[in-house]
């Protein structure tokens, strides 16, 4: 499959497809990511629900391998699945920009494994545990500490700065060790498999984007 449509300026666009594509491209690899909302529903299952531009860009950076430097453009080529899934799909995107880029969808094979990316809020002075994820993304401004439980049975407390250092040690990251200002915990990096993390939150709400894979 190739081009599936064109975004309208400052408007929400809906693409109804009879398949879930593996990759979803907005514009070209040299286009600024203009989205402020991304929702994907396949066969009645909500796969993606990302409601902030910062998190969508962080996800795109994670998927593409980010480049160092603030003004370098990152392609919005987000991964939706492991291959094309032949099931009814609705992709909803909100274009907050003034441009009208084309939208493309392509795959490298046929599969039944989809990727999920959904948000969860942690209230002020509360904590939340995330298990069996591919990656979690969050703004570390209000985060006090993170308990990381590795699959080998070892667990330790990490400061937000250490989470950034841990991520950038094994992944491409921005100069601050983050992805578009968001800290990222990668469950399957060279640091060893991470089974669970508990994020202890401070003064204000923190929204966490969690990704994993699911068999449809």
């Amino acid at each position, binding site marked *: 499959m190739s081009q599936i449509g064109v975004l309208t300026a400052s408007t929400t666009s809906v693409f109804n497809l009879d398949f879930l594509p593996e990759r979803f491209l907005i514009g070209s690899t040299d286009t600024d990511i203009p989205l402020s909302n991304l929702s994907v529903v396949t066969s009645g299952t909500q796969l993606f629900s990302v409601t902030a531009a910062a998190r969508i860009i962080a996800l795109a950076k994670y998927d593409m391998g980010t480049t160092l430097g603030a003004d370098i453009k990152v392609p919005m080529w987000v991964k939706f699945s*492991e*291959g094309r*899934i*032949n*099931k*009814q799909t609705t992709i909803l995107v909100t274009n907050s920009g003034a441009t009208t880029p084309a939208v493309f969808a392509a795959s*490298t*094979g*046929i*599969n*039944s*494994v989809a*990727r999920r990316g959904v948000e969860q809020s942690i209230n002020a002075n509360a904590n939340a545990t995330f298990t*069996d*994820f*591919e990656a979690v993304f969050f703004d570390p401004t209000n985060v006090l500490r993170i308990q990381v439980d590795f*699959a080998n049975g070892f667990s330790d407390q990490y400061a937000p700065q250490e989470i950034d250092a841990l991520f950038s040690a094994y992944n491409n990251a921005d100069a601050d060790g983050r992805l578009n200002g968001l800290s990222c915990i990668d*469950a*399957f990096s060279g640091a060893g*498999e991470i*089974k669970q993390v508990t994020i202890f939150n401070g003064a204000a709400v923190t929204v966490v984007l969690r990704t*994993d*894979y699911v*068999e*449809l």
Partner: protein
Amino acid sequence: MLNYNKCEPMAVNTAALIGGGLGLLKQKKLDQAASGSKTFTKPKTAVGKLLGNLSGRTAAAEQQQAMKESNLSPKAEANLMQQGKLSTPVTGGFSFGGEASRKTYLPFVVVAGVVAIFYAMRRRKGSRRRY
């Protein structure tokens, strides 16, 4: 004033209905191919190819072939395996101590057998009394 005699019956869009039905049939075959519950082969004859295109058999066979050739990325495979480590308790049936990993209906079968034997014996006794 309304003239009811001039009311026409509601038009039925037959083409859309047939199209929808064939679409459902095709989706069912694609789902079966994806789950692996049924194996599909590509039709070889001309008539078979025509019917296969309509029913979705050809598409299902092609999907199954492509799925065999497609590999998961290491991260997706690791994540799915990680989730697989979780043992989800199975509801329904009985478990004999510990966490149920597989539901069994053996106790129901045993009880049903005992009840069946009991009633069979009663019947035989009753029939004896009548004679």
